[in-house]
């Protein structure tokens, strides 16, 4: 320490001394480094006002001739310029700081960027750094609870599982209802494969004035993802990795063998009318049923270590006139269930070259491969596993898989563990997203940009059931191979023009875009009768029997003209006009084109004189907007009607005359030439207020969103039409909503920092018009309903009032006829232990006409709350998410809470499908246990009502979504390493909920949860959803 002081003192003396020497030319030397003391090569040094220049050498050293009064200017691309006075110094150690492009200051709004302060619409922005605070392999999950007005959730927790983003309530009931995803200008359906570490920023366009630039694709909101690009003047290599182990957070408890015995024999006694195949369960004789013990635990047997690992390497190199970036990402996500996993391999290549000052050419390519292994089977397995009774052996005496069911007489039990162990089920997608573009700066004010984007994906499904599974043995092996190819081109031409004067600025943009999407598929159908299992799905010719082969091709086109003008006056008043005119091949000839306008006004009130000197308020901006966007998210050919070639396909058998099957065709849909765009009209008022130098920020929006001509893919038709459903413009819907975020830097100390962020969203959905009367959405699956005056998808059931505990209660539950005054029993056939139903329409009869809305899949509101603590090099991030006031259809109850029928065997129709019971059934009504909420075993109901408890459950929850702790190593002692940090996190650390399934956010809109083409028509439906784990992660980030 003393030494340093002495040296410093001497240095000052030296400076003072040299100052007296003036106006003398001398050779000045020195070294230029960056902040990490890495020498910078090719830094330009100029003497201000003179022609003298020099460049640093490979060691960052330079020498230049200058006078004492001169100033030296150091400049280097990507670094902040620095000017130093020569005075009399002869040697300089110059440190150039990295030029921080403050990405918060720029917002991507679609086809262009604007300064954050100039934004007129309702746009939320999340930076890549925000995303990376949590080690989450997909970006949608990382957004949960962070975007005001967006209901984001993980709907499938299986490896590579599905997610959902719904912006400002339910916007569409057809297609996915998911927003338009635009990755660097490329339209894609699914962003699951994107590596979060490639993300620079995500902008979410919420109001229609913002989304109308995307016209027909923008109705569900737009999510713009900008990936990282190499920075000029920077050579950077980063490596990051993390490893996650996951544990079951909640599970469904099922009965053990001894408990099952009690229920089995009680049900048998209560339902003598049901015939059992045999009277006794093999290995579990009735007379010693107390000694049944635990039985077999299929759930335990199905598990494997549940882990995830991720590796990222990125290299980028940039200069002013060219740059290149390369990235590789590898992710392996093992499921909770045997042999189930998801592997993702990503590459990212992007680059740019500027052959002249006025031309920039660039490209990006994202090749990706992702492989789901046993995903569909795994999902099915969960349902099957829970269906197997605890008295069904998993292995037989020889240790081989058992296929004999509990009664020991029939070979009709598909052992799910055997299926997972022995079968092949691979779903592999190879995908390339690519973009090449050219920018021409015609004049400083006028630029032209054109780009061609091409997406290609090939999805391959390889499926084989060997004869070591029950199903495979019945057909001597069963294979199915299918390919689906999707190709999409988008080509656009954009011209922009800008004037920037001191008082006002105008930017204008106009252009056109055309795109074409083609799908084609080939499916082998089921190939069976293999003489050996050795080929698996890789030699279909080895199967003697083939049926149901098919192929398919479709094409759709879209053309659009777009324009936007931004006006700014005095940095206070902002005005934006947007328009898009889109045509789609999918609509009827007279309805192909639609115009989507938008207008937005913003007023930066804080710049007005009356507020400009306010000490408390540092920012106050109003935003008003109105606009329209549309949706065309239907499959092609819906307006034309089609004749279905039934062929000889397996799924729709034809007919046989004599002994010969014949080809057949039949109408599949009828034509609908009036089919037209779904239009979303939205009005938005927003305000941004900052206090105390923006240490506390409030950002709130109120909106009204009306969706008219709702496209409904499966609009139910009466059976008498001969069609189950058709695609129609089925009605209108509206969402009224309110959202805000509040963020504050509570403590801003040098060592200790504390900031917090709250995000609140609320919307109210209502169907304002529906063609015909209301209808059930998918009656065979759940009880969701759509009808005028109700929110879409409310659960439509006859309300249950509990259990009749005594006969007296049944006798007293009566109806008084208003005219005759006569009393009649409302549920005359009920027995104690049956369910008591409400006569909602007061007609004295309880039947399906008494159905009403008993719950809603829409939350009352959602709140996300994040807290960031920083202490020296430590950082702690806690994020809590909660969804309040929504109900979920817990379909697992159909199997596990079936108290009315005796379930002996999954294939034993019509006695039901479940074979085991939830432990909740142990609390059933019995003469000894009269005060309970669970019906008796063998309970009955009439008039099409269910004798079981409703499956609607409270799905509200508060979840500690993420707790992450990280440590940045100090740079000392780390040669060649720029930053190094390690982190650990816990996801889903606590969950507070009354929901009884594995997770209240589970949703399987379509079977096989991971499918990307989910329909949003079914909301809040959980059928043995994949359990959400508690996940512990450890990882490191390294930059050098």
């Amino acid at each position: 320490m003393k030494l340093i002081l002495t040296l410093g003192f001497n240095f000052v003396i030296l400076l003072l001394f040299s100052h007296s020497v003036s106006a003398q030319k001398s050779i000045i030397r020195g070294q230029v480094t960056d902040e990490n003391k890495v020498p910078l090569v090719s830094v330009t040094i100029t003497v201000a006002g003179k022609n003298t220049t020099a460049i640093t050498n490979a060691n960052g050293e330079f020498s230049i001739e200058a006078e004492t009064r001169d100033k030296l200017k150091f400049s280097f691309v990507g670094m902040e310029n620095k000017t130093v006075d020569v005075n009399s110094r002869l040697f300089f150690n110059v440190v150039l700081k990295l030029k921080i492009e403050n990405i918060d200051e720029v917002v991507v709004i679609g086809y262009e960027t604007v300064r954050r302060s100039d934004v007129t619409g309702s746009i939320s922005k999340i930076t890549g750094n925000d995303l990376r605070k949590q080690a989450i392999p997909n970006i949608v999950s990382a957004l949960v609870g962070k975007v005001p007005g967006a209901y984001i959730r993980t709907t499938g927790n299986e490896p590579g599982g599905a997610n959902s983003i719904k912006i400002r309530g339910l916007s569409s009931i057809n297609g996915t209802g998911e927003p338009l995803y635009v990755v660097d200008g490329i339209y894609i359906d699914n962003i699951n494969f994107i590596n979060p570490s490639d993300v620079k920023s995500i902008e979410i366009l919420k109001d229609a004035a913002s989304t109308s630039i995307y016209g027909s694709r923008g109705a569900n909101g737009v999510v713009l993802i900008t990936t990282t690009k190499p920075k000029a003047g920077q050579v950077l290599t980063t490596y990051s990795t993390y490893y996650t182990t996951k544990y079951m957070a909640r599970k469904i408890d099922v009965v053990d063998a001894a408990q099952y015995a009690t229920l089995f024999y009680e049900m048998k006694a209560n339902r003598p009318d049901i015939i059992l195949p045999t009277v006794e369960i093999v290995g579990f004789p009735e007379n010693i049923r107390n000694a049944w013990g635990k039985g077999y635990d299929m759930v335990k047997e199905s598990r494997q270590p549940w882990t995830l690992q991720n590796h990222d390497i990125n290299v980028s190199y940039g200069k002013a006139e060219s740059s290149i970036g390369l990235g590789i990402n590898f992710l392996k996500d093992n499921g909770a269930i045997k042999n189930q996993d998801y592997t993702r391999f990503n590459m990212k290549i992007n680059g740019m070259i500027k052959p002249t000052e006025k031309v920039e050419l660039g490209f990006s390519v994202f090749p990706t491969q992702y492989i789901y292994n046993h995903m569909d089977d795994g999902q099915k397995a969960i349902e099957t596993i829970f269906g197997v009774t605890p008295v069904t052996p998993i292995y037989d005496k020889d240790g081989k898989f058992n296929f004999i069911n509990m009664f020991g007489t029939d070979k009709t039990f598909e052992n799910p563990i055997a299926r997972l162990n022995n079968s092949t089920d691979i779903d592999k997608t190879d995908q390339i997203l690519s973009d090449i573009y050219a920018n021409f700066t015609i004049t400083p004010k006028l630029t032209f940009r054109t780009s061609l984007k091409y997406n290609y994906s090939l999805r391959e499904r390889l499926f084989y059931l060997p004869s070591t599974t029950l199903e495979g043995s019945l057909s001597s092996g069963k294979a199915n191979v299918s390919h689906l190819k999707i190709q999409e081109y988008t080509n656009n031409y954009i011209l922009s023009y800008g004037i920037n004067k001191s008082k006002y600025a105008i930017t204008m943009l106009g252009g056109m875009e055309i795109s074409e999407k083609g799908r084609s598929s080939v499916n082998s159908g089921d190939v069976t009768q293999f003489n050996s299992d050795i080929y698996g799905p890789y030699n279909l010719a080895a199967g003697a029997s083939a049926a149901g082969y098919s192929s398919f091709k479709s094409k759709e086109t879209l053309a659009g003209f777009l324009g936007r003008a931004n006006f700014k006056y005095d940095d206070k008043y902002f005005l934006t006009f947007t328009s898009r005119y889109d045509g789609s091949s999918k609509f009827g000839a007279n309805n192909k084109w639609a115009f989507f306008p938008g207008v937005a006004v913003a007023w930066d009130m804080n710049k007005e004189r009356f507020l400009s000197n306010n000490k408390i308020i540092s920012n106050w901006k109003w935003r008003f907007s109105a606009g329209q966007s549309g949706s065309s998210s239907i499959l092609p050919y819906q307006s034309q009607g089609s004749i279905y070639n039934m062929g000889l396909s397996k799924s729709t058998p034809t007919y046989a005359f004599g002994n010969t099957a014949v080809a057949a065709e039949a109408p599949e849909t009828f034509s609908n030439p009036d089919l037209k765009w779904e239009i979303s009209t939205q009005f938005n008022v927003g305000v941004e207020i900052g206090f105390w130098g923006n240490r506390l920020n409030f950002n709130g929006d109120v909106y009204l969103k009306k969706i008219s001509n709702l496209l409904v893919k499966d609009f139910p038709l009466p059976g008498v039409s001969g069609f189950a459903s058709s695609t129609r413009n089925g009605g209108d819907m509206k969402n009224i909503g309110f959202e805000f975020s509040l963020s504050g830097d509570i403590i801003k100390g040098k060592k200790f920092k504390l900031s917090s962020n709250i995000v609140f969203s609320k919307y109210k959905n209502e169907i304002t018009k529906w063609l015909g009367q209301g209808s059930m959405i998918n009656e065979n699956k759940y009880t969701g309903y759509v009808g005028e005056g109700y929110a879409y998808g409310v659960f439509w059931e006859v309300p249950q009032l509990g259990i009749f505990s005594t006969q007296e209660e049944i006798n007293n539950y009566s109806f008084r006829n208003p005219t005759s005054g006569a009393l009649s029993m409302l549920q005359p056939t009920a027995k104690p232990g049956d369910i008591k139903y409400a006569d909602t329409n007061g007609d004295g009869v309880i039947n399906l006409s008494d159905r009403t809305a008993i719950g809603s899949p829409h939350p009352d509101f959602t709140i996300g709350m994040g807290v960031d603590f920083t202490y020296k090099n430590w950082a702690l991030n806690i994020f809590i998410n909660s969804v309040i006031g929504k109900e979920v259809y817990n379909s697992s109850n159909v199997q596990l809470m079936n108290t009315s029928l005796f379930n002996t065997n999954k294939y034993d129709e019509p006695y039901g499908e479940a074979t085991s019971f939830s432990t909740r059934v142990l609390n059933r009504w019995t003469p000894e246990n009269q005060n309970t909420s669970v019906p008796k075993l063998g309970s009955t109901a009439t008039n099409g009502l269910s004798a079981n408890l409703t499956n609607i459950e409270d799905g509200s929850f508060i979840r500690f979504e993420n707790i992450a702790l990280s440590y940045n190593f100090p740079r000392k002692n780390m040669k060649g390493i720029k930053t190094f940090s390690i982190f650990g996190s816990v996801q889903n650390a606590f969950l507070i909920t009354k929901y009884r399934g594995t997770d209240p956010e589970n949703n399987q809109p379509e079977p096989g949860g991971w499918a990307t083409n989910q329909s949003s028509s079914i909301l809040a439906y959980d059928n043995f959803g994949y359990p959400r784990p508690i996940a512990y992660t450890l990882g490191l980030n390294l930059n050098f």
Partner: protein
Amino acid sequence: MRNAKYLVALLLIVCSLSACKKYLVEEVFSSSQPTNFYMNEQQGISALNGVYAGLRDTYFTYANDYTFFSMLEAPTGTVSFSPGFEGMNYSAKDLADIKKVWDRMWVCVNRASMLIKLLKKENVNEISYKRIIAEAKFVRSLCYFNLVRMWGDIPLNDGVETIDGAYPAKVSQSLVYKQIIKDLESAAVDLPTWKQYAAYGNSGTGNLVNDYKGYERGRATKGAAQALLAKVYLTIASSIASNANLYDNAFDKNDMYTKAKVLCASIYAGGHDYGLITDYSDIFKEVNENGKEDIFSVKFIEDSDLKLGNSLAGMTAVKGTGILTTEVGTLKSTSAFLNEFIVSDKRRAATFFLEYINKSNVRVLYPAGIKTLTFKKYWSDYQLSSDNIPMQPTTYIFKTSAADKGRFGDDIPILRYSDLLLMYAESLNALGDMANAKQRVADVRERSGLGRVLPAGDLMELIISERRRELCFEIQLWFDYQRLNIVQRYRPTLSAVKYKYFPIPISDLMTNPGLLPQNPGW
């Protein structure tokens, strides 16, 4: 700025509106449209095959859905099934299954109506055109006939081409019957007899055979249309006679009986070469399908992957015999019904599954208990001993592996010659010609080994009990109970008005108010 002008001009050239118009024309690759279909004979035949497939789906689908069978057999008291179907007290799942049957029947009707309406007459050979339209009318009539008997007032579907036609409202039963009669009358004119049939062959396939038991076996014939029409007339007449349904006085009872009698008489006169097969237990065998006794049936063939097979055998196979791999055993007969057959009635052994031969070639009396009694009308395709006893296979050697799964080629009979004889007898009896009526009943009884001498008593009562034993498990009895107003006799608990018709699916009432009101009591 000058450059900009060129660019704007370029943009407009690249995509002028007319170019865009062309760009947005929807190209179709993998399906036809109603506008370019039904254009020629081949397409007509293909669509007609689709109509038959629709008919098959109503009776039994590849997904092992036999709800139609359950709906109409379980309430008769002859089949023990789930309590919901036996007592017509349906659970939510039962109602969902009933909705499927309803939907499938209308799918079939609509397919037929579309074909009848849209097939381009000028592009199709005249004989083929007539045949195609007549077959479609026959199948549609059969569907309407089932629908009107099951649900009462129903709409008529004339082929839905756009959304406007998708909401037809209910019409009275008499109008439905008039439509059925009109269609069947014209079908009976245009359809060939089963002997003539083969001459047409199937266009383009070259599979011309001179024997009807060839390629076209199973299509609707003139005899089928006449027999079905006779059944329609008799249903109307007997419903009026029994006060079960007066059809708004739209029909004259005696006129209907007479028309039924005339049709039965013309078939009986021998123009079509129909007759009784000597042995009752041979009726359902594959060699006898669509032949002498089988006037019309819904076809199934033994099949492993195309799923054109009938697995009612599997549904009736009792668990634990080892006869089939898939022994579901949910459809059983009641022992009370078995006791209605005297032992000397040949139909007893042919109808009920009383014994089987086990692996060691030993006859096992079966069933062990009354609850597991089953019937074997849909077992004739199975490997049977010489005296028609199912055998437990030593190895699973069947004709195909499909049989192993219980998917046989047994057809579901719709119209049999013995049914026609009993209809003939019934109409003769109603019109006072007792002597001839008795002869026709005697024809049927003689084949069953009961001799030609009729027991004493009311002839109509005898016809009823003969129908019961002759046609059980063939989806006939419930309709007989209803038209003859005799539900009280066999199922007193189902004699209320409510059980006369099935409930219209509630979701249909919600989407199509034209179907209101719901059938009484539901």
